[in-house]
């Protein structure tokens, strides 16, 4: 199970939830399950995010494995980061 921290900016899309546990083996699985649990987040997820797994920031890495008990943070894309909305959409 990964501990997913959404950050205060995203609380408004999750009814106040800013931290939750999700069972996901990859970033793609995590985003799919997150979008299913909190549909209002979907446009944000599609807009593009950076994902930090245990401190390492990933962008454009949908297939990156998430180790068990990982700490995952959702971040805005880092400038120069690549996560085109039209590329991200296919994960749904």
């Amino acid at each position, binding site marked *: 199970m990964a501990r997913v*921290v959404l*950050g*205060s*900016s995203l609380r*408004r899309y999750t009814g106040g939830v800013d931290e939750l546990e999700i069972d996901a083996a990859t970033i793609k699985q995590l985003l799919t399950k997150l979008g299913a649990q909190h549909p209002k987040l979907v446009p944000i997820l599609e*807009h*593009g995010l950076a994902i*930090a797994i*245990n*401190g*390492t*920031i*990933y*962008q*454009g*890495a949908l297939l*990156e494995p998430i180790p068990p008990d990982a*700490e995952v*943070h*959702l*971040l*805005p*894309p*880092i*400038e*120069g*980061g*690549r*996560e*085109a*909305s*039209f590329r991200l959409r296919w994960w749904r």
Partner: protein
Amino acid sequence: MATNPIDVERARSKQLRWVGTRGPRPDGIDKVTGRARYGADFNLPGMLVGRVLRSPHAHARIRSIDISKATALPGVKAIVTRDDFKDMPSEFVPAGEMMVNYRDIVRNVMAREKALYEGHAVAAVAATSPSIAREALRLIKVDYEVLPHVITAAEAMRPDAPLLHEDMITMGVEPAPTKASNVAKRVEFKTGDVKAGFAKADVIVERSFTTKPVHQGYLEPHACLANVNEAGQAELWCTTQGHFVVRSHCAKLLEMELSQIRVVATEIGGGFGGKTVVYLEPVALALSRKSKRPVKMVMSRDEVFKASGPTSGAHMTIKIGARKDGTITAGEAELAYEAGAFQGSPIQPGCMCAFAPYELENAHVVGYDVVSNRPKVAAYRAPGAPISEYAVEAVIDEIAQKLGLDPIEMRLKNAAKAGTRALYGPKFGPIGLVETLEAAKKHPHYSTPLGPNQGRGVASGFWFNIGGESCATINVNEDGSVTLMIGTPDIGGSRASMALMAAETLGIDVSHVRTLIVDTDSIGYTFLTGGSRVTFATGMATVDAAKDAIRQLCARAAKLWEVPEDQVVWDNGFAKRTGENAANVAPMSLAELAAKAGKTGGPISGHAEINAQGAGPTFGTHVVDVEVDEATGRVDIKRYTVIQDAGKAVHPGYVEGQYQGGAAQGVGWALNEEYVYGADGRLQNAGFLDYRMPVTSDLPMIDTVIVEVPNPAHPYGVRGVGETPIVPPMAAIANAVSRAIGSRMFELPMSPPKVLKAVQARKANGG
């Protein structure tokens, strides 16, 4: 191919032969002899001259555009306006180093309903000569309804401010506003309880700061040559930091398939983030498609200032509390950044970086992305960070001074380290801030006595750095020399550093490796040069491509020796036998294998296509001494030292160049550079005479210290270095000036009239 941690250790523990050396720059001879071919140096037979008609108004509705007289002028072969570019739906995608919306891009390339800044493109012509093109522009009649304008974030945020986009509702506010405004977005980052944190503080300082928009100041203007044939196939030569990004934008805007456009990145005369977007390129392609002739377009310097993308001006309020011993107990920041005519300022990274160098339990940062009638901002080296970190570092310095603490000691007390949780959430891995602070403390600069009217300033800075998509192909030529092909334009010496990493990995002399930046048809998609990513990401692809070539070379040697492949290893440029009788078998060099390649299966070519992850952030600390002439307000930089973590400096000379260049740009930003607008919303200083950038006579020798805390994610430990050097200078210089004159400065640039005013105010108060 994932980087194996064991490979990293091996790489670091063995004596490196090439990585870390200072060879000659491969592009040096062409550049100093004038042979280097920049964007404006390309020509084709039958070429037309393209010119843009630009709005003279800061804000105006475009009622109509009459091109009939211009079209009839002999020598005019094509004219394009908003009617030649299909409108785009609202869709956010990354573009260069910013997130952009294609609905905004198409309007920035060519105005549609409104002209939103002086210089906004309204029409363009292609003609047989520059004079005919100029006359054609004069004949185009645009009916404008001039509207009131706003320039600064403060003006644009007023409730009665004229609106740039009547449908702009601020995102990130709950509940969503019902009324449109010029605030595109509100962002927020929070940790802990700032109220409780401030309650524990012995000293609290709250200050407001203003910075002005500044330009990246690249010496080479935007330039391109477009050639579209009757079948709709296009070639484009342009000065850019990312030719694949140019291809993506142009294909989207002109509704072309990507495979129909080939883009060549010409030699580039500076970019610094400002050449990560498109301006002339889609226009030139549209003109070429219409005229069926090549079209060349080059911006004048005036156009570069008015119609490309400077960085944001900003208004900020920073509040920091600390205990007597210097421990920071809470930090608060409110930042408003100007985005220019369309949303998308670097407010987000500005917020994320503001307190990044420090371990803070309690922090709260709110940021606003504000549109105004100025050119749309583009990235400028660590976009957003220099602005916010200037303000935070200035307050930290004021607190240190109030508490009687050494500014470096105060930073050491609060410094982020491995395991520190950043305000934006994740914990840092290994980082080098403490190492840079310790090095600053020990540097002879820091103990050099100061003279009269002199002050010393210190500031630290941070930038994330990124990875991203990079491809590399290594062709082993039949004589054993190697051609390395990559897709990231060279703006800071990457041809040299790629060659060094390829040579190191292959085990051959670097003089046998030549690096080429190839076009978009010749290599896989490669993201642009930006985000301090190239030595990291393209470097990783280069190493992977070299390892792929090595695998093939070993397999070829195994075939020649008629042994299984697991009995061959690669060692220092040679295939060697292992196992039985290995000692009796002479190794085969890369050159020997290459010579036989054609007859033993075909040419050897290693390649790699990756999306590099694990970029390590970079911290730096700057120390600067200034002398203030209290009669004129002029500030002279007397000594400057940049200390920054590079992870591993592949070519130390280039790394030092990045450090010095960032510092030099920071000097300009701190002391002189600003966009000056008249009451009519028009830019008053659109040239280098009045937009005053530092020249060599303004600067002392900038000393550099390279700290190396390796990034475990890269085969040689590399961290990006290009952007962090511009983050600390404004604060370091502001702190130095403040200490020199005994009065705090809160506005950039600290040009002589402002410094003089502060000195006079101090004297009037008995100081």
